């Protein structure tokens, strides 16, 4: 914008800031670093930061900042033009399988587990899984606030081969890749992503929605989930610690992500994709994002004697969540049947959660996520945040800002009336049929 600017960031973000500035065309951006962290520090401690050194350079921080705004520009600072980053040669080898495994792993192309080497032959075989041309652009992906990378059907097929997928899995993987949603993102929070598959394709490619639906018990579930991680790493340049990934603990869901397959046949309710306006016979993947999954058995009211009150149990669990990410109920068909007998539809159940999972306005405002993501919206007048930031401390408000942040999916093998709850919310649905 033509205004002399000096970004100041805590030193933990030095590498990601330098690389992101370069990717955005300012490789000489004058960054100054403060000690880390800033949160939780008292005014006097932060006053100490102002009078201390930039921990990166060792020079006094504030004079460094004033210098950044006044030091004359160099020739490099004023450079213009364009550059095209290289991703290396189109092929690697010829070499032994073992050496190529090492090469792919050591160059960050894998999830650190062995992959199928994507030879021309097995990529061609994978491409038979779709009618789309190999060079067709599928979409764009960005692993955070970066300019997105683009990619073709062939790129997705290469990563699907590496993940161990079969050609019949490719339309689902293409649909996920086309969604624009990555499975690894640069946030310091340990985010995770989910994909829910609905429609007849579930049976055709042997996806598991029954016993152990969330576990390692079906090739399609595992390979599709793993493909998404490799797609993110290789087609969005995601998942590079210090560059495009900053999650402090990481998330074990990131290995194959939260791959969900709705047990439509055992559910008393309409399938998720039908709720979203698709026909039952359409094949659809619905995308979710969030943080974690919790076992449902630990909630109160889990049904010892008499009629179980699953709605209370789930509400109890949702009450511990951050409303920002929403709540996703992964409900065994036995629980769904019981709730259905008590008159609950999916919509009525969601309405129950929305009304009964509550917090005080003070509790809401003291959450880091509220301040970081919703206070800014409150300043723009976006509801309900604008109102929630004005209410008296003890006013009871919903945990979730909108019922749309809540979702119910039926899955599982009916071996026990238990469920799981996830701090996840729905983002969008994508047609799988389009990629067949």
């Amino acid at each position: 914008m033509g205004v002399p600017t000096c970004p100041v960031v805590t030193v933990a973000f030095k590498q990601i800031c330098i690389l992101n500035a370069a990717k955005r065309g300012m490789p000489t951006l004058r960054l100054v670093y403060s000690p880390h962290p800033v949160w939780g520090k008292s005014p006097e401690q932060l006053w100490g930061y102002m009078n201390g050194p930039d921990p990166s350079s060792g020079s006094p921080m504030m004079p460094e900042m004033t210098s950044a705004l006044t030091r004359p520009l160099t020739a490099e600072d004023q450079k213009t033009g364009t550059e095209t980053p290289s991703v290396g040669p189109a092929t690697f080898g010829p070499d032994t399988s073992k050496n190529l495994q090492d090469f792919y792993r050591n160059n960050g192309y894998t999830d650190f587990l062995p992959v199928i080497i994507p030879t021309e032959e097995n990529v061609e075989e994978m491409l038979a899984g779709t009618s789309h041309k190999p060079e067709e652009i599928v979409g764009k992906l960005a692993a955070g606030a970066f300019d997105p990378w683009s990619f073709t059907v062939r790129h997705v097929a290469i990563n699907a081969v590496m993940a161990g997928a079969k050609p019949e899995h490719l339309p689902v993987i293409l649909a996920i890749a086309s969604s624009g949603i990555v499975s690894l993102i640069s946030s310091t929070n340990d985010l995770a992503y989910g994909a829910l598959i609905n429609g007849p394709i579930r049976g055709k490619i042997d996806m598991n929605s029954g016993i152990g639906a969330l576990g390692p018990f079906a090739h399609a579930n595992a390979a599709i989930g793993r493909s998404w991680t490799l797609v993110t790493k290789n087609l969005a340049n995601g998942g590079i610690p210090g560059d495009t990934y900053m999650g402090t603990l990481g998330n074990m869901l990131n290995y194959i992500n939260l791959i969900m397959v709705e047990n439509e046949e055992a559910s008393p309710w309409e399938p998720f994709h039908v709720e979203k306006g698709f026909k039952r016979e359409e094949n659809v993947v619905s995308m979710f994002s969030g943080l974690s999954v919790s076992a449902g058995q630990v909630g109160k009211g889990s049904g010892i004697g008499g009629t179980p009150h699953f709605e209370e149990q789930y509400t109890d669990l949702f009450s511990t969540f951050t409303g920002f990410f929403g709540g996703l109920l992964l409900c065994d068909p036995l629980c769904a049947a019981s709730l259905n007998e008590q008159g609950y539809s999916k919509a009525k159940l969601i309405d129950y959660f929305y009304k009964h999972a509550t917090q005080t306005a003070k509790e809401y405002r003291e959450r880091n996520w509220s301040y970081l993501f919703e206070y800014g919206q409150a300043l723009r007048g976006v509801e309900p945040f604008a109102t929630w930031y004005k209410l008296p401390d003890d006013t009871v408000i919903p945990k979730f800002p909108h019922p749309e942040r809540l979702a119910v999916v039926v899955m599982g093998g009916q071996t026990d009336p238990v469920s799981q709850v996830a701090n996840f919310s729905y983002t969008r649905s994508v047609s799988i049929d389009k990629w067949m």
Partner: protein
Amino acid sequence: MKINRRRLLQAIGMSPALLAGPADAAEKKAAPKAAGGSEKLVGLNPKGMPPKITLFPLAPRFSSLDGKTIYMVDIGFNNGDVFFQQMQRWFHEHMPSVKTIYRRKIGAYPQDDPELWKEIKSAGAAVIMGVGH
């Protein structure tokens, strides 16, 4: 759910021959060849296509900050407001001719705030933006 009894028996270590006739086709299938350690392969590059980078020159600098205005733009991380309060205090003590204005950027940290950029530009000011966790 389809049940394959032969697979069930195999899974618990029993011979599927208990259920098979004398000419069990599955048993006669050729075993896959062991992977040859010396076979040479050519692997395809799995990376996508990065965007072109357009280089932007840095904005012209001030020759001095004396009498100038600096906007302190808080991108919204926790305690950023307190951080910038201390920075304002530093300028007040060390460079009192500098006028500082604190602004919390509207929207979450990745969101643009064109109105604020317009205000800063029309004020002919510099910016210090931060700060992260």
